């Protein structure tokens, strides 16, 4: 049995391995973050980066890091965190590893609405800090509601939810393609750049919106997620253990949809992070269910790591979305194959 950590009337289960792995992931994320703001056309030594971060760097470094690179890296960090947690929530609630916001259509619903706003407004929305995020959030929410009601039949069945999610997702991608086919060629270029998922040219304005909304949502998730734990056993057991599962599910699903919506509005529909980060985090911390915090941290690591690779290792500045898929996919396959080998042995 797990020992407890007890301070006064407060107590938690002590799981050293989970804490250790999450800490290692966090440290790795911080290091990748520092490397990410160090490298570029003008590379800064790591010690100088640390000095700049604590406010004792040189003028030039400060300008390059704080004004040029920090916004992009921070958005990457927050978007990865939001996607990781969003995926962990939807996978836990649907009790199905495939149930991530991308598979359920939320991501593509958000991007279809965003593309609609971009093309209908003649590109004006891309530059506004409110228009695009608001459109993406609304689109994500509406798609989630649509999928939820289509999948509802005296409760939610994970398999049916995914089938409907996949269908709606495909429909939303078709709508996006159709909108692009109709649109003015200049708007198409703008929308396309956003659609592959990219962290290019972020400003501090976008950072703050993304950061605060994500922080507020994560806070709600952290508080409510205590009620999520009995829900891994299904509705009846959860009710028997005193959980008002309908309300808890509604709140957490809303948070998951909003987190995915915020991520999409900040960086475009970056594929695969929400699907793969919780599954990888789960295997790394050896948890039977997606761990919320570790999923978020791994999502952040995957996203800024991919962005770094896209900028530095690969030629001609690929969008981050392509790299997350190239890295995340094989890594999950590797973990699954390794588990099979272990089981067979």
């Amino acid at each position, binding site marked *: *049995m*797990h020992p*407890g*950590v*007890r301070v006064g*009337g*407060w*107590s*938690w*289960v*002590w799981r050293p391995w989970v804490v250790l792995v999450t800490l290692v992931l966090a440290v790795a994320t911080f290091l990748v973050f520092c490397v990410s703001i160090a490298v570029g056309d003008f590379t800064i030594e790591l010690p100088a980066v640390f000095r700049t971060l604590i406010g004792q760097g040189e003028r030039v470094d400060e300008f390059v890091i704080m004004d040029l690179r920090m916004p992009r890296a921070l958005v990457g960090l927050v978007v990865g965190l939001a996607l990781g947690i969003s995926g962990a929530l939807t996978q836990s609630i649907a*009790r199905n590893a495939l149930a991530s916001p991308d598979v359920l259509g939320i991501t593509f619903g958000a991007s279809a609405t965003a593309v609609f706003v971009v093309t209908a407004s003649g590109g004006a929305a891309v530059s506004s800090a409110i228009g695009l995020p608001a459109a993406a959030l609304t689109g994500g929410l509406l798609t989630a509601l649509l999928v939820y009601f289509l999948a509802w039949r*005296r409760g939610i069945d994970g398999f049916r939810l995914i089938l409907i999610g996949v269908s709606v997702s495909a429909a939303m991608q078709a709508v996006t393609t159709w909108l692009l086919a109709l649109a003015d060629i200049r708007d198409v270029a703008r929308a396309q750049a956003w659609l592959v998922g990219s962290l290019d040219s972020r400003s501090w304005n976008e950072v703050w919106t993304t950061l605060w909304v994500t922080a507020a949502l994560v806070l709600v998730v952290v*508080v409510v997620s*205590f009620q999520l*734990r*009995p829900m*891994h*056993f*299904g509705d*009846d*057991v959860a*009710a*028997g*253990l*005193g*959980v*008002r599962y309908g309300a808890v599910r509604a709140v957490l699903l809303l948070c998951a949809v909003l987190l995915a919506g915020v991520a999409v509005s900040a960086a475009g529909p970056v594929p695969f992070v929400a699907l793969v980060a919780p599954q990888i985090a789960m295997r790394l911390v*050896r948890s*039977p*269910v997606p761990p919320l915090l570790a999923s978020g941290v791994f999502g952040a690591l995957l996203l800024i790591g991919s962005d770094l690779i896209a900028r530095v290792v690969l030629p001609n500045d690929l969008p981050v979305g392509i790299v997350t898929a190239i890295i995340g996919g094989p890594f999950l396959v590797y973990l699954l194959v390794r588990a099979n080998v272990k089981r067979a042995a």
Partner: protein
Amino acid sequence: MTALRNDAARLGAEGVTVGYADRVVLDNLDVTIPTGVITTVIGPNGCGKSTLLRTLSRLLKPRQGTVLLDGHDIARLKTKDVAKRMGLLPQMPIAPEGLTVADLVARGRHPHQSWVRQWSSDDADVVAEALRMTGVADLAHRPVDSLSGGQRQRVWISMTLAQGTDLLLLDEPTTYLDLAHAIDVIDLVDDLHEGGCTVVMVLHDLNLAVRYSDNLIVMKSGSIVAQGHPSEVITSELLLDTFGLQARVIDDPVSERPLIVPIGRTHVVPKSDQNLG
């Protein structure tokens, strides 16, 4: 755990009508669950026995009537308070792959926990005791999915015990178990009853129900047709009326209860050759 034998009934229903969509499953039904004994609900498929159990456990909300738990209208109690007063084991619960026995049983403490108080020393003690009482302490670190069906059912019962209640509702705890494991699980339920628990369960196997229950509730088409001690309730007429089952009721050679011997169309020797000592 305190024995509550001979106390007033803790659980009962008054005039409950329950249905799904346009179908009424239970119609204006009254029932009282005696304290400190094993009550088993039996009846043919679709008679509403699981619906009754789900109504008593507040999983289903009756259209009319009230379920009373310790004198309170259960619909007005907080979900958490209901969970502190009764443990519920639904049909075929699922555990995430890889979850250990100790972690599953520890979840039974949920109704007593809060965000800041997630694992107190009380919790640890109660879980250890629940594991011991159900004989699964040695399996504590094994994943639940690596256990046999019978062991798994013991673990789930252990989780409901960890809720710290002496009122247990079990929906078909022996489904899909072979006879040896079914007996093992139901012996455990009997141990808990000896320890002072009130148990309400739904069983499919009539002879197990007769052997282990002190109080039988026989249902047919949403109504209770008989209730009482198995020796008084179980007759060949009742079996024919409610189940449509041709059977002879004889004395059980190993217990003081009746034994149901079903009579099918085949493999029945002529009456003159029967030897039913």
